[in-house]
């Protein structure tokens, strides 16, 4: 980024020669507190992944046969939904910087819709599991599966609550193109939820 960029806020600058607002070089996206939370959450998920790896090396047969008993379509749909919702949130950020708060709120609404469809797909998947005799006590692979996916589901649930709060703040004029740290904080947290699923999906549904 050019050194002649006009600094509007600690997080955004005005691009030289245009009216485009861009993220500032070296900034902390959102605020420092959310990064303490994000890194803590990522560490929590890392512990789950470690548990998965250790359980897998001691029970290779169970962990190699487990994924083929799961509903790959549900896992794939949920991956596509979470990536889409992350994209929608990124578009909402761009719209806010481009001085289009109404469009930003619309993108955020689409992100919430994707999150809620994710939750519906997950409940349908759990019902499908029960119908196929898959429960938390079936074996160690499925215990790990429920441990990871239910924990992640909770994150999607309360994360979508944060997205709704973001929509309310946009609609009530709480953010503007120069000052939207709160929206960026919500966006960063939401992307973290997507990142966790990017690891969970192949571990549980793909690797055999």
């Amino acid at each position, binding site marked *: 980024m050019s050194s002649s960029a006009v600094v509007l806020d600690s997080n955004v600058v005005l691009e030289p020669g245009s009216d485009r607002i861009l993220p500032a070089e070296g900034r*902390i*996206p959102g605020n420092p507190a959310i990064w303490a939370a994000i890194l803590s959450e990522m560490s929590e998920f890392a512990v789950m992944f470690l548990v998965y790896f250790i359980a897998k090396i001691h029970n290779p047969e169970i962990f190699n046969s487990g994924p083929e008993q799961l509903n790959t379509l549900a896992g794939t749909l949920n991956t596509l939904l979470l990536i889409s919702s992350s994209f929608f949130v990124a578009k909402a950020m761009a719209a806010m910087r481009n001085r289009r708060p109404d469009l930003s709120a619309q993108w955020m609404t689409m992100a919430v819709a994707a999150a809620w469809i994710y939750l519906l797909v997950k409940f349908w998947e759990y019902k499908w599991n029960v119908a196929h005799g898959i429960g938390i006590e079936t074996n160690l692979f499925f215990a790990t599966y429920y441990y990871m996916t239910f924990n992640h589901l909770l994150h999607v649930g309360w994360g979508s609550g944060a997205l709704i709060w973001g929509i309310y703040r946009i609609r009530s004029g709480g953010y503007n193109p120069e000052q939207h740290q709160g929206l960026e904080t919500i966006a960063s947290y939401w992307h973290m939820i*997507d*990142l966790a699923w*990017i690891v969970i*999906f192949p571990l549980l549904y793909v*690797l055999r």
Partner: protein
Amino acid sequence: MLVTVGSATLAESAEPSHLITVIVAASVAFKGRMVMDRFMELRNANKYIRGSMNLYFYVIPLMIIFVDLFSEQLAKVIHL
């Protein structure tokens, strides 16, 4: 999106192998990096935050490969 659909296709059709595991690990690293760079906008963010997040998506894919390649050896030295 394409990487996700590709992973699902692999899961449903391909025979398990070390090559498949490496491809899956690479897809995790790639998708993680894309989300961090494009959506989270970490590419020009604070270097410590960027470094921590990037490290995560180097370590986890490497662990996926290590667990697949050295499963028996790891089981001898790591206990539940």
